[in-house]
């Protein structure tokens, strides 16, 4: 599949949503006082964890209250 034939208009929303999830997770990571496990590790998981990274962070990493 070459570059021009990629349907960017269709894929763009996915990229945007993923970016929002990553940004929101990172903002939250900075704001919360403590996480389950080291913060830097969660930063790595959020950024490199693809679609699932931010989700895993919100469910497992975030320590509520």
């Amino acid at each position, binding site marked *: 599949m070459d570059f021009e034939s990629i349907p960017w208009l*269709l894929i763009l929303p*996915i990229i945007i*949503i993923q970016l929002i999830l990553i940004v929101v997770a990172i903002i939250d990571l900075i704001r919360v006082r403590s996480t389950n496990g080291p913060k830097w590790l969660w930063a790595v998981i959020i950024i490199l964890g693809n679609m699932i990274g931010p989700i895993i962070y919100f*469910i497992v990493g975030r320590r509520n209250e």
Partner: protein
Amino acid sequence: MSNFSFLFQKEWRENVRNFKILWIPLVFLLFGISEPLTNYYLPQILASVGNMPEGTVFQFPELSPEQILMSTISQYQLIGMLVVTLGFAGIIARERKSGTATLLYVRPISYFSYVNSKLLVMITIVIGGVIVGILASLYYTNILFGAVDIGAFFGFLGTYIAWLLFVISIVLFSSAAFTTGIASTVSVVFVLFAQIIDALLGTYWTISPWKLPMYAGQILNGNFDMTPFVWSIMITLIASIVLIAGAGYFAKRNVSKAKI
């Protein structure tokens, strides 16, 4: 009932500030879009990833738009339900454990308003998120695979919403009755594992809340049996109401378990 609006405002603020109001719907939206896309472009993706021996031929079945929507639902049934069960298992239990609930429980609140405020927030986030996700999925499916019957689609969506209400009730009830850890386990067992069991052994019965996602698919395809479907919906709604009432009962009963 006047307390309800103040309690709801608190729940709303909480879920805005911990971003649940944003990230949970985004997850449903993400899967809603990516399911039709990956299905459509899978052959090309596989081809471009390469490393296939020369002459390998992939046989891809022709997928109908209905199948794509069902494949979105099956994503929701796994990852989506994990997000809902684990994300909300602490909605009452965690307040008790941390002790923040104590300062609510000493006030003249009604425990049904208390539980309902949490119910409404969960409905908004989960059902709202799923509707947004499925509509996006429908839009992409429409572009890439063709149209579905709109009446059948709403029957499908409505049925799936009934299932979601059942899931939410299970999670809310568990959180009212148990600690966060046990509530997570109970919710996962009754939402995810029970589905598998129902799928394995469920040929022996036709009336079950856990069959609703399957019935939703059948409605979409236009071939379904009315009687077991109607009974399943009824049973599901009644079970949800009982669970929500039970959540109110246990929320009150467990007041003494709040950390003082």
